[in-house]
């Protein structure tokens, strides 16, 4: 049976072109393979410290001075972080239980207030006055390896 895959004798130019083509295609294939292997490798390298199901916010405890509070957005929903004068932390949901506005901390009156319909809450999240029907949910906080961790 004639071996068709062996090319018949050809002129030197033709055989040079053939070799060049084969080598070029081979090189292209190698580039292509690398183009698949490299992204795959990078993809497998852990992208974020805690993978897809991070359920807590971590931050530097000193970024919150005692007696102050601020709203954090990184947890997927607004979280109000309060630091009492004695240095202890408290984390509450910052979503007002009335109609969903974002509450804020009023340091002068040491109260959590909602700007929409003047709902007010104690620093523990209990309703003081106004239309909110329920207290603010609270989230556990802990100090882990020097960082404040809020589990949402």
């Amino acid at each position: 049976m004639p071996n068709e895959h062996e090319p018949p004798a050809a002129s030197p130019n033709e055989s040079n072109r053939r070799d060049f083509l084969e080598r070029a295609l081979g090189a292209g294939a190698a580039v292509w393979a690398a183009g698949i292997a490299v992204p795959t490798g990078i993809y497998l390298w852990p992208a974020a410290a805690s993978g897809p199901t991070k359920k807590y916010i971590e931050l530097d405890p000193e970024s919150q001075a005692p007696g102050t509070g601020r709203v954090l957005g990184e947890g997927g929903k607004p979280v109000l972080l309060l630091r009492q004068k004695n240095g202890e932390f408290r984390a509450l949901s910052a979503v007002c239980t009335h109609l969903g506005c974002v509450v804020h901390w009023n340091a002068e009156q040491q109260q959590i207030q909602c700007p929409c319909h003047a709902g007010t809450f104690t620093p523990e999240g209990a309703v003081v006055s106004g239309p909110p029907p329920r207290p603010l949910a609270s989230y556990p906080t802990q100090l882990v390896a020097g960082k404040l961790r809020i589990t949402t």
Partner: protein
Amino acid sequence: MSLRARTNGWFEQRFPVAGIRAGLEKQMHKLLPPHVSWLHTLGGMLLFLAAQQILTGILLMVYYRPTTEDAYESVRFLMLKATFGWLIRGLHAWGASLMIAVLVLHMLRVFIMGAYKRPRELTWVGGVLIFFTTLGFGFTGYLLPWNQLSYWATTVGTEVVASVPQIGHSLGVLVRGGEAVGQETLARFYTMHVVVLPWLLVFLIVVHIVMIRTQNLAPLEAVGEERPLDPRTAVSFAPQHTSRELVVFPLFFALMIALVILFPPEIGVKADPTVTPEGIKPEWYFLPAYQFLKYLPKLVGLALSAVPPMLLLFWPFLDRTRARRPSGRKLSVALGLGVVLATLLLGLVGYLSESERTILGKRVRFDMYGVPELVHEGH
């Protein structure tokens, strides 16, 4: 002795290397019928797609979490945070749709060329089983992102299963792992999608390829009138046919990358079992069946919709004519094309149903049967 020669020698002392090598070479340079064409590259593309789905699937599993709490978030993570996660997911999602589309084209080619006829009936049957398995992949995979579309399309799909008389309810509970789509459904679908169906698919594909290799591609002569291959006109698998596949493959790959980048798959809205969105529909490859079922009473529709898959599966045993060449079987070819077109049309109607579109500047609303109605402003 060179390292290569030494390695060869080591293996030659333990295995019949020469025989294996000769066998592989024979397979590589196998002669194919002269009519083998560009249309015969579809099978190779399917093999590539199956391998790609498995590879991208494995990679996705590294970050995907199959629980109702975390599934949606993990897909978001894949799209937003994992480097090239969007690419892997995009390839997997588009790969799924393309695999079904190319499968249909491949089956159509086989049908038109009568290649399913004796002695290749079982190759066809195996192929149809691969088709069903691929649809199963589509159905189970669609639930995994756990968004509203996933959840409700699966609810509708499992409702169809549960409407089978007598055993329907139990079947539904078995498929869903409960009375409604939930965590159990996700776990079952994930198991099917990631273990059961892949093994089944690989097995079916291997059998399919072995059958094709042992029987060779069907010629164009009629059954019983096959002529042996003439070495002067026959086409070698490698390098002649594979050179065609090497032309098509980069084009196909380019198409896939373009689709992934220009039309990235959505994440959607997280599944909410208490809110049913309007006009839920299954994925495009189920639209024809879905639309069909709307026109008939439940049981009649179910019974009738079991007919086409059975016809497809057993076609080589129903069509006992002997012509293979398309020009000699114009009726069959017309029938085959007609069925595919009708199915596509039904699918299009399904796509348009229960939606409002702007056609030629006018707002048109299609009801669930696909009947259009002009929408008047200020209704």
